[in-house]
């Protein structure tokens, strides 16, 4: 694929105005949350962009500078492909104009509001544009300032400078006001820590407002396989989706649109569907009306289709996740469970991965006396709206007590939900909707991790008891040896050695180093 192919897929949507009025919905509410959201948008975009390239391991630099009270500058730099000059505006300046929105493929960002929203937020709070420096590794560096013309939903690029120099990647600098840097569960530090956990192939350097540098090294050196693009499954679409697809379809008849743009709809199926519905499928897709689309979606639900292919999903992977957990949490015990792909709503494939870590740095839940839950969707940490999320609900629904796990047990649970279409609640993409199949999958995998930890803890408790029991023998050995030696005249040391070896033999199941 030519390098710039992805940028040709941009499609314009005029929603900048909408964003401005609804910024809470997109995560720009609250001073701490807003700052984290900006970092989140840039970092997510950045990793996705780097992964578009073959053979490139992502390396990121994140820096937060304090400019004044509630005034910060966010700098994010990547080693990605860089952005050609004429795509900069579309990449950062237009809402819903990203490459992602209309592609049916597993990606971190989903709706394409992200980076533009962050640019917009900076602009609204400071009046200043966002600075972009980008290079494609061809000896030229482009530097410019980008702002958004809200009325026209268009980027305006100013102070463009081109100079020569070696750079491959993109650096974004956005100033923000009315935001606040804080450590803790909603802060950037935690967001980045979790990002690294779910992206073990990422190298991240982070400089916090106090100037402290944290370097997260890669836990794995291999590039994860690229997700495949897939056509939507009829069971996975909503009326709105269907109308959207129909509008952009190149087919001349709905019949062929259904066959071409969906998976698992054969000619035979189209005939079956035609029999069930009241209008003619020979009409143009763009003439599809809302109530007709509704009828179609309803018919999809009543028709049997083959399940969608699930090989389009790429989870973190058991071994990678294990390494990440090992590297970042240094736990005493860990258990990673990767379940087979499943389908929700009859048409959307998804994979649930869970990791449970015990001891070490696990269970550091910012002072809360409960199990630490790290939620991810397509490897993106979900920090907010914990309560409504299917992951949280699944965790709470498990009877951890049964596995000997109490509220104060140092446990971290990590759940990564992988899907092409994540059923988020709201446009803020902060929590996953409570679909029955999803909840069930998470629950099952959590129960497995719980069972494994329970078994480990039981063994540990038993070991501790055994050790205590061993001690009860050992403390009496010197006194017994002395007495028996005096009674019999046998050397005390020899008796001692005999007794010790009897105890050792009896407790041969206990590891020596404990």
């Amino acid at each position: 694929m030519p390098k710039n192919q992805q940028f040709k897929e941009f499609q314009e949507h005029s929603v900048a105005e909408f964003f401005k009025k609804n910024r809470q919905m997109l995560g720009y509410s609250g001073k701490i949350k807003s700052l984290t959201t900006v970092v989140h948008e840039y970092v997510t975009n950045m990793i996705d962009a780097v992964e578009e390239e073959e053979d490139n391991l992502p390396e990121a630099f994140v820096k937060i500078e304090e400019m004044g009270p509630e005034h910060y500058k966010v700098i994010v730099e990547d080693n990605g492909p860089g952005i050609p000059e004429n795509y900069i505006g579309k990449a950062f300046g237009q809402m819903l104009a990203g490459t992602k929105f209309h592609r049916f493929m597993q990606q971190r960002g989903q709706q394409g509001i992200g980076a533009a929203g962050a640019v917009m937020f900076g602009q609204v709070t400071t009046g200043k544009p966002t600075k972009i420096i980008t290079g494609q590794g061809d000896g030229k560096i482009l530097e410019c300032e980008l702002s958004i013309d809200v009325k026209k939903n268009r980027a305006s690029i100013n102070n463009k400078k081109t100079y020569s120099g070696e750079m491959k990647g993109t650096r974004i600098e956005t100033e923000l006001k009315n935001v606040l840097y804080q450590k803790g569960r909603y802060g950037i530090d935690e967001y980045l820590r979790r990002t690294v956990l779910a992206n073990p192939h990422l190298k991240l350097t982070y400089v916090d407002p106090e100037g402290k540098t944290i370097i997260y090294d890669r836990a794995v050196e291999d590039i994860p396989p690229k997700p495949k693009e897939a056509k939507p499954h009829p069971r996975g679409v909503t009326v709105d989706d269907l109308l959207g697809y129909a509008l952009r379809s190149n087919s001349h008849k709905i019949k062929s649109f259904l066959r071409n743009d969906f998976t698992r709809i054969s000619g035979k199926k189209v005939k079956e569907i035609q029999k069930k519905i009241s209008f003619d499928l020979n009409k143009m897709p763009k003439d599809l009306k809302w109530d007709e689309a509704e009828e179609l979606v309803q018919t999809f639900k009543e028709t049997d289709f083959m399940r969608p292919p699930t090989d389009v999903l790429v989870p973190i992977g058991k071994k990678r996740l294990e390494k990440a957990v090992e590297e970042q949490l240094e736990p005493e015990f860990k258990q990673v469970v990767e379940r087979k792909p499943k389908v929700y709503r009859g048409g959307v494939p998804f994979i649930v991965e869970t990791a449970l870590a015990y001891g070490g740095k696990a269970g550091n839940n910012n002072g809360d006396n409960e199990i630490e839950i790290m939620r991810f969707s397509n490897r993106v940490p979900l920090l907010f709206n914990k309560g409504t999320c299917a992951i949280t609900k699944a965790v709470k629904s498990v009877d951890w007590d049964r596995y000997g796990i109490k509220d104060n047990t140092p446990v971290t649970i990590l759940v990564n939900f992988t899907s092409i279409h994540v059923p988020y609640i709201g446009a803020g993409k902060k929590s996953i909707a409570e679909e029955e199949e999803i909840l069930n999958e998470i629950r099952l995998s959590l129960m497995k991790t719980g069972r494994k930890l329970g078994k480990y803890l039981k063994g540990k408790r038993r070991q501790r008891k055994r050790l205590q029991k061993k001690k009860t023998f050992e403390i009496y050995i010197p006194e017994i040896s002395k007495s028996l030696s005096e009674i019999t005249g046998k050397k005390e040391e020899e008796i001692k050695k005999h007794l010790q070896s009897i105890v050792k033999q009896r407790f041969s199941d206990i590891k020596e180093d404990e």
Partner: protein
Amino acid sequence: MVEKAQEKALKELDEFGNQLLEKLNKKEAPSFQIPSRTRSNVEFDEEKEIIDITGKKSTRSFINASHVRKFMQTLLVARAAEEYIKNNRTVSKRELYYNLKHKLPGTNKNTWDDDNESSAVIDDLEATLGIVRQQMNVSAKSRGSIYGDITLKQAGDEFSCKKLGKGGWAIPGNVEDVEIVDYDAELILFIETEAMHSRLVEEGSYDDLDALLVTGQGMAPRGVKRFLKRLQDETDLPVVAFTDGDPYGFYIYSVLKHGSMQLAHVNDYYAVPNSKFVGMTMDDIDKYDLHNVTENLDEQARKKIEHNLNYEWFKYHPEWIKEMKKMRKKGVRIEQQALANKSLDFVAKTYLPEKIENEEFLP
């Protein structure tokens, strides 16, 4: 100098230690057998006519978590006993407790925390080795005395128990080293109370009855019991008991004759099965018209009668059962000293001579 009784103890201790060592050499966890001393393991041996422990034994092993502490304590006492015997030192139970109490090396745990622990271990060791603690130079409480025409020797001193003043010779807790040199008597009279013992000494009953007068001041302590046993063994004189006419007095007699449950593992050393009982009996009340000096049985005494009625060694003697039932029916008790109601010397001049002469005994 090590006495004969102590020699046996040394031998037993040595065997005990070597037996443990043998197991150790075979790379086995050392353990020893210990006759069970629980109440359920106590029974009346009709052939020997003593309360004995059955053959049931339990094992105390070094490698058993609930045994190891006691295992250590048992060895500690065994080791100390050997030392006491060799150094010719006798210690009290309390002394032994303090003497051997110390922190276990490298811990903050004591060898024992109270003297219940040390006492139990001493009893265990007695049962295991088949010797009494006096033989290990751990003395019992000394209480009680003997008065009469008998010459004894202890610690190199020879003395007549008739020439030590009105109190006679105080019987020590450890009588293993007492030697009987000479005696002139026809019977050994065991008297429950010290007051009655004094009365009989004052009235000259040792002469009138040709008796060695022994008192244990209530329930006879180990020293007195052991001394009586040795006296009986070595002189073959009959032992006659004279106690209060109540369930407690009769129980004291039963212990003298058949031994106690607590010392079931060593009753061989203490019990005198051919003892006889002279009084006080319920029939005495009628025969000597003592109705006006009886006392009513209280609730506790009545309970004690019921207990007595249930012991195998009481059931072994129909006469004892009869006596207990009579007591229960009359609802009264009669003390030895109630005989003073007749006259102070009535017991010495009339009651005892008459009953002993006519052998009016209970078995």
